[in-house]
């Protein structure tokens, strides 16, 4: 789960990580009054959406009068911000963060991740801040400093000093850096975050270190014990189909193709998408119905997949272990009947109760396209889509 920048900064404040003075607002009037309240002569207005690359997209702008801040906020709120991460449709900006603008002397990067290789939280720091850390890692890997944290003792002061020293935070900045690093670590640990980063961590003109931008994401599997973090979830930032899927215990991710997929198991779901792609088709989604899928759950899966208007055919690929093909088949029939589905449906069933499942499909009046294996199923689904596309094209030609 991701949260907004202003929410991350609020969390970090509790851990004594210094952040710029500021507040989130929902209107231009509020933006103006926050700027007045903060005082000073320069402010920054930052669009609050779950995406990186806001600066380049015009989502971070500086103003030097209260009127200017009002105008910027007015322009930003209600607009759609298109970044390299949002897709061409962009994200609607509901709120902006108004902060005191800082004069930056030098920028650093500070982050914590769960490193799969060491199976531990690892601190990553760099003297190259304010740019994407992936770029730094690629172009100048020697400027990436890593420190692995032993969970039994946590992040130790000397480790922070080592890292700070290596990235050039010395003298009076050293104790400040140690405090920020430890704060970030404690915040990550206490909130079950899987990633926390401050980028840039900046030295500003008064000689202090300040977290100018910060980002955290959290472990969905731990939200049950972090109610305060769960509260921060913003459903506006999520695909409504994905939210509905989660509510039904399904795992759905929208993609941009036209072959709808209903599969059991994440690995098989990905492999099914791959098989479709290799046959020249494009999957419309990833969908895992999970184990022990009831007929109702299968019918719900259809409902979600069909909300995507691009879907031209649906491929069902089930290899039942703890699932039952007869339940799956019953769910398919229910969906066909209740949702009045007219699209071609390709079904591949294998594993537990496969004979019963096939019998249920055969006994129905629906013209299912039955496939024998993964290759057959993906070939048939792609052929159906091509067929439909051909028909549409020839129909258009006739009309013309």
């Amino acid at each position: 789960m991701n949260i907004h920048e202003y929410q991350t900064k609020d969390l970090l404040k509790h851990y004594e990580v210094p952040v710029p003075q500021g507040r989130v607002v929902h209107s231009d009037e509020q933006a103006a009054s926050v700027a007045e309240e903060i005082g000073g002569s320069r402010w920054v207005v930052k669009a609050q959406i779950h995406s990186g690359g806001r600066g380049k997209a015009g989502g971070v702008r500086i103003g030097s009068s209260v009127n200017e801040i009002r105008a910027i906020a007015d322009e930003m709120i209600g607009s759609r911000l298109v970044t390299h991460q949002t897709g061409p449709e962009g994200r609607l900006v509901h709120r902006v963060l108004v902060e005191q603008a800082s004069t930056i002397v030098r920028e650093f990067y500070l982050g914590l991740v769960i490193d799969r290789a060491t199976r531990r939280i690892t601190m990553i720091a760099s003297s190259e801040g304010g740019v994407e850390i992936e770029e730094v890692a690629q172009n100048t890997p020697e400027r990436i400093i890593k420190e692995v944290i032993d969970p039994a003792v946590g992040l130790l002061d000397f480790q922070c000093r080592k890292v700070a020293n290596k990235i050039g935070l010395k003298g009076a900045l050293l104790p400040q850096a140690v405090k920020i690093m430890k704060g970030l670590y404690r915040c990550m640990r206490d909130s079950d975050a899987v990633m926390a980063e401050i980028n840039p961590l900046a030295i500003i003109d008064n000689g202090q270190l300040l977290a100018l931008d910060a980002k955290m994401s959290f472990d969905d599997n731990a939200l049950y014990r972090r109610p305060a973090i769960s509260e921060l979830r913003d459903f506006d930032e999520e695909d409504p189909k994905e939210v509905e899927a989660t509510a039904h215990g399904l795992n759905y991710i929208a993609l941009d193709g036209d072959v709808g997929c209903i599969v059991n198991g994440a690995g098989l779901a990905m492999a099914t998408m791959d098989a479709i792609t290799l046959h020249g088709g494009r999957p419309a989604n990833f969908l895992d119905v999970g184990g022990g899928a009831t007929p109702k759950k299968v019918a719900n899966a259809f409902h979600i997949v069909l909300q995507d208007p691009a879907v031209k055919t649906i491929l069902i690929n089930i290899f039942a272990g703890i699932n039952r093909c007869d339940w799956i088949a019953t769910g398919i029939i229910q969906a066909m009947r209740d949702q009045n589905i007219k699209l071609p449906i390709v079904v591949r069933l294998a594993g537990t109760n496969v004979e019963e499942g096939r019998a249920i499909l055969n006994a129905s009046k629906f013209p299912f396209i039955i496939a024998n294996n993964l290759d057959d199923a993906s070939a048939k689904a792609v052929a159906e889509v091509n067929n439909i596309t051909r028909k549409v094209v020839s129909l258009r030609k006739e009309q013309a």
Partner: protein
Amino acid sequence: MSVYLNKDSRVIFQGFTGQHATFHAEEAIKMGTNVVGGVTPGKGGTLHLGLPVFDTVEEAVLATGADVSGIFAPPPFAADAIMEAIDAGIKTIVVIADGIPVQDMVHVERYRLGTGAVIIGPNTPGIITPGVGKVGIMPSHIYSPGRIGIVSRSGTLNYEAVAQMSELGLGQSSSIGIGGDPVNGTDFTTVLKAFEEDPETDAVLMIGEIGGPQEVDAARWATKNMRKPLIGYVAGLSAPAGRRMGHAGAIISQESDTATAKIDTMEELGMYVVRNPADIGATVLRAIKMMSPKAVDQR
């Protein structure tokens, strides 16, 4: 012989009397697994499926000599159950739970250091050694005894591979699911080592997916250390970056996480690679045929 689970293994289940554990313990017993009892705190001293139930793993190990545990505790309690098994001296711990907080696994891995315990999972279908037994949730009837070792992240994709192999008459020595979580107990390399040393395994199929460096690390290790043929497939060729594809660990965070990058590296390293998931069985067969009959005999 086979890896991690063999005819001498003495198996217990933690969370034994729960609905899922009961079902899968019964299935395991049906296929001949040497199940010696189980643990459910508060139900010690009773019998379940005709086997003794204990309050603690320590007690179960003392009474039964158990050395393998299948953990069916739900995610919030799984880390504690794993550490209890480690503390009691269990050597092979299979963790089925899907959804254990990742920081819990960070602690578990720290606790495990130096104990010699092997944790399979979490979020795994488990281990099966056809003809000997299973600790897991896979449908045992699709597997058959043979000489191919399988190690995979995914459960159902493992079944898919087994079905393709069965059609070509290829059976399995053991099949190990390492699970789909970002922090898991046993990585690909560790399982490859076990298969390389196993006299009943001739070749190994590794089924990976997007996210993390494990597949490539294992492939690099294998190039230097493995004599047996290694066949690799990586799911998620068409997966978008930055999205978690079902499994907590299946996410492309950087270029090296992509299926294409992993498969390309495997190919460069001289492995047999599968690009189309429909070709898994055929590629395994091709790898086996390339082996000299002499090399097979010597093992």
